[in-house]
């Protein structure tokens, strides 16, 4: 009976995580790992392993729709993947070192900090649909950082170009490293890399970030697989739960323009972030 209860709580938690993750735009994993470690007493290795797997599922599921919309810039995404996959490999190796030396408290604290810092851009988001143009630089030309898409909200074809490819690459390397270290997609950091550093429109940044998350997570998951951080039952149920949750979230999202509701989600995230840091500190002492 306890077995059934555990399976049921895995499924419910992952559906909730997927739902909140898709409404906040942070992805299911950011909410999932704290719920698993804090409330279900799952070791952080297994929690991050399951969350990485779920990240691939949601990213691929959503990307199949975005590819049809032609908003994702595959060139820019693939170019930045060089940095995220390299970062993911290094992040996973560091995670392995940390677990081998029983230093998991470090990951709890980093996780808490990452959650808390990702709340800020969420709160001030959506001010500008399109970025203010910056003069193209040499990377705009060499790395072909341009494209166009049809914006349904603005009812017009948007032509855009990106700048500072090198700065984007540096941020993406850290995004990949965080992803490998914590088993999350680190979509917030990827969006900052494209939106802030490369001056791309927010719609291109978010869809291209989603496309990149799948490839980054596949890189770390194969290493996690080898290290034994993937518990098959947990990972399988989590993938399905997060898929259901984020699908439901994507259906509800267009109907929600309620600022108060977003604020409640941000408070949940703040609570989880602080709890992770406290747990890390407790393990340390």
């Amino acid at each position, binding site marked *: 009976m306890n077995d059934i209860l*555990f399976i049921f709580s895995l499924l419910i938690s992952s559906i909730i995580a997927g739902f909140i993750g898709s409404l906040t735009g942070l992805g299911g994993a950011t909410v999932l790992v704290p719920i698993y470690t804090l409330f279900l007493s799952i*070791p952080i290795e297994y929690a991050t*392993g399951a969350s990485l797997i779920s990240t691939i599922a949601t990213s*691929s599921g959503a990307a199949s729709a975005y590819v049809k919309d032609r908003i994702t810039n595959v060139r820019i995404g693939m170019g930045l993947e060089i940095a995220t996959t*390299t970062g993911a*490999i290094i992040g996973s190796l560091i995670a392995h070192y940390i677990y081998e030396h029983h230093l998991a408290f470090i990951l709890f604290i980093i996780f808490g900090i990452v959650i808390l810092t990702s709340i800020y851009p969420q709160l001030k988001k959506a001010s500008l649909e399109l970025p203010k143009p910056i003069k193209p630089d040499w990377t705009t030309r060499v790395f072909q950082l341009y494209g166009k898409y049809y914006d349904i909200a603005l009812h017009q074809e948007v032509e855009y170009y990106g700048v500072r490819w090198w700065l984007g690459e540096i941020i993406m390397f850290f995004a990949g490293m965080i992803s490998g270290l914590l088993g999350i997609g680190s979509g917030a950091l990827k969006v900052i890399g494209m939106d802030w550093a490369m001056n791309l429109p927010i719609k291109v940044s978010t869809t291209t970030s989603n496309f990149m998350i799948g490839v980054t997570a596949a890189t770390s998951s194969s290493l996690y697989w080898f290290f034994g951080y993937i518990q*098959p039952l947990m990972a399988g*149920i989590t993938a399905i739960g997060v898929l259901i949750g984020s699908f439901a979230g994507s259906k509800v999202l267009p109907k929600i323009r309620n600022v108060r509701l977003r604020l409640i989600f941000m408070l949940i995230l703040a609570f989880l972030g602080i709890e992770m840091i406290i747990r890390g500190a407790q393990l340390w002492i």
Partner: protein
Amino acid sequence: MDLNDVIGYALRIGVIISVILIIIGLAFLSGNRDFSELVSPTSRVNTSVINPTKVPISAFSGNGLDLILLGLMVLIATPVIRVLIGIIQFAKERNILYTIITIIVFFNLMLAIFILPLFIH
């Protein structure tokens, strides 16, 4: 058909196949002798004790655990296939720079999947 559509379908089919395999695996699992060991939060059954090359054969003979593992493998393979199609796409466009870039990304994936595991432990 446009290659972009091929990519869209490839991603969707990958996710659907893996979800189906995981669900069938879960249904078959109740008969598994390791069942109670598998559902413990601190279970010792994880991917480090599994030989990946044996998974597909044993999955098709109806082993629940291996069906789930095969589903997870398909899921991990989906973005890899997407990168492979990317190489073809850029090569067809005769975009040499991005063909090389995509090949490097593919190499990174192969490094993580096949090469690095040979050198660790």
